[in-house]
């Protein structure tokens, strides 16, 4: 393990399930990140108790505790969109880097294998939605070899893994994910659908991406699309080991708005690593895994002294 001087101190804001899973992930990795603080607002929270047991410093003073220690260079925000709007300003003023796991979207959207390089020195980045992290890489993988007119994602997650925040703001999931499919996935138009499934035992997160390339069905380079998708799968697996395409893409000709178009369907599954959250909750795992991946790249960047470059 690298010594403390070669590591970057990070803080987790929010002591709920997501914050706790982040902590477990950070403690399990031998990377450049040193989890130095978990800050919540409820002194009796289970997350803070777990952190203390694991020997990590905790505070119930929320953002104030983070701001007090100038060595905490990177801050994961796993609170709520409303709280993050306030946190974003305070963290920016204090020169800290924020990785936003809420839907607040104060900074640019980041999907690690697609556009992380563009945003390494960005002070605040947002991780879109779980469905976005799962499906935007697929959209982009098709788009980079066959530019897309339209892309649609359908995400099915277990009911027990959809928390009150998602439930009360389900339209925001739809809007944000669709925007991400367009702005990062590359499609001219994106659409997102989410389905909650109450089966017990809970189902693993599954997604299907349907993509309509601009190219006519006869002109589509199908082997190139398949290759690009498999490469992307491997890239995502580097930080989300439970991510897999359930089959090669299915190529069809379908009538789309009155014209025969090529439609590429890609079914995929996201199993969690089971660090703290259960394995079926791949939808939550892909958020925390992406957040850690983003932070690691940022930490390397910080240590190389390129801040503000």
């Amino acid at each position: 393990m690298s010594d403390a001087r070669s590591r970057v101190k990070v803080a987790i804001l929010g002591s709920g399930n997501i914050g706790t899973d982040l902590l477990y992930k950070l403690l399990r990795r031998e990377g450049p990140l040193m989890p130095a603080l978990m800050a919540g607002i409820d002194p009796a929270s289970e997350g803070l108790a777990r952190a203390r047991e694991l020997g990590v410093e905790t505070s119930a003073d929320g953002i104030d505790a983070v701001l007090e220690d100038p060595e905490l260079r990177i801050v994961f925000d796993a609170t709520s969109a409303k709280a993050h709007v306030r946190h974003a300003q305070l963290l920016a003023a204090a020169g800290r880097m924020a990785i936003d796991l809420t839907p607040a979207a104060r900074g640019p959207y980041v999907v690690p294998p697609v556009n992380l390089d563009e945003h390494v020195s960005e002070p605040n980045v947002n991780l879109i939605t779980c469905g976005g992290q799962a499906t935007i890489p697929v959209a982009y993988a098709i788009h980079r070899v066959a530019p897309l007119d339209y892309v649609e994602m359908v995400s099915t997650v277990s009911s027990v893994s959809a928390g009150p925040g998602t439930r009360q703001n389900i339209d925001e999931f739809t809007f944000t994910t669709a925007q991400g499919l367009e702005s990062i996935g590359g499609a001219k138009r994106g659409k997102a659908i989410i389905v909650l499934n109450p089966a017990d035992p809970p189902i693993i997160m599954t997604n299907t991406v349907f993509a309509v390339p601009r190219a006519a069905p006869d002109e589509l380079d199908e082997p190139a699309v398949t290759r690009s998708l498999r490469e992307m799968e491997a890239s995502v697996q580097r930080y989300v080991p439970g991510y897999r395409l359930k089959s090669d893409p299915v190529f069809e000709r379908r009538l789309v708005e009155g014209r025969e178009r090529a439609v590429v369907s890609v079914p995929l599954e996201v199993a969690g690593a089971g660090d703290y959250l259960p394995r079926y909750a791949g939808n939550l795992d892909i958020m925390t895994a992406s957040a850690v991946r983003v932070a690691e790249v940022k930490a390397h960047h910080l240590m190389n002294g390129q801040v503000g470059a």
Partner: protein
Amino acid sequence: MSAGRADHGRGEPTPDQPAWLAAPSGQPVRVTDTTLRDGSHAMAHQFTAEQVRQVVAALSAAGVPVIEVSHGDGLGGSSLQYGHSLVDEMRLIATAREHAGASKVASLMIPGIGTRRELREAIEAGMQVVRIATLCTEADISEQHFGMARELGLEAVGFLMMAHMRDGDVLAEQALLMQSYGANAVYVVDSAGAMLPWQAAERVAALKAALDVEVGFHGHNNLGLAIGNTLAALAAGADQVDGTLRGFGAGAGNAATEVLAAVLDRAGMQTGLDVFALLDAAEFVVAPLMPFQPLPDRDGVTIGYAGVYSTFLLHARRIGKQLGVDPQEILIELGRRKAVAGQEDWALDVALELAAAKAVSS
């Protein structure tokens, strides 16, 4: 076949009080016709504005109080997942409003598919009643949408889909949530056409006992019980029920509105419907435009028996044909995996696996 057997509740009628067998008490009942919404599935979402005009005019003339028009999967349902609409549903809603006369125009919306954006557009297009549908265990994702409906003074009806999956107690809890968000009525929706009459009655009775607002029932005919279940629901006190002309809806279709009108009239219920006008509408307006007559055939009964979402029918057939897999196998496997409303993409997933398994074993 036993692997595909659904594990949904098999409540038995209590021998001393078979409420589902009782004659309905003659309460006034509001019939909503959803040919132009549930039938959108059977139509693969290809309704034209002219067809909407004809059906709405006929329903309105026959005294149908509420006419539902939208993509089968509700506002915003036009997609590769469910099928693209031939004509923008907002245009169909506007056409319906233009010809609906004294009838109200309703649309379905399913949170997770449609959003408040489409809700607002539909109101501008002339929708007067929104039916907000969630899976029967997930009512709490509908709060935003009921909130908006209430704010804009719209009549809002809750739809608890796939209601065969849970008993009356669970459904009543979920219905109470919808009532607390502002629902004017809540429906027990047998999306899979999997209920038996006493099961429909048990669920409706539970909602009647728990709610202050009206209770409805929406049936499918996959087990040949759409009319029977609707009668049982009425015997248990339902205030609102659904039908489609010729039963033209998803899966094996719905309770046929014209049959319902005749049966409810014979049962002495006040519906305000003109039986003969509906028989004409079914025969001369809807039958000619139907690409096929939904009925409890091999795949249809399988849907009810396996307890899967009725709209999977045409998707399982299309994908089955493409990959050389029997649609019945796809439907049974979807039931085994407990696929729920909206999961059409799992039909592809399952078919790919079945095709791969077949390739290995042959």
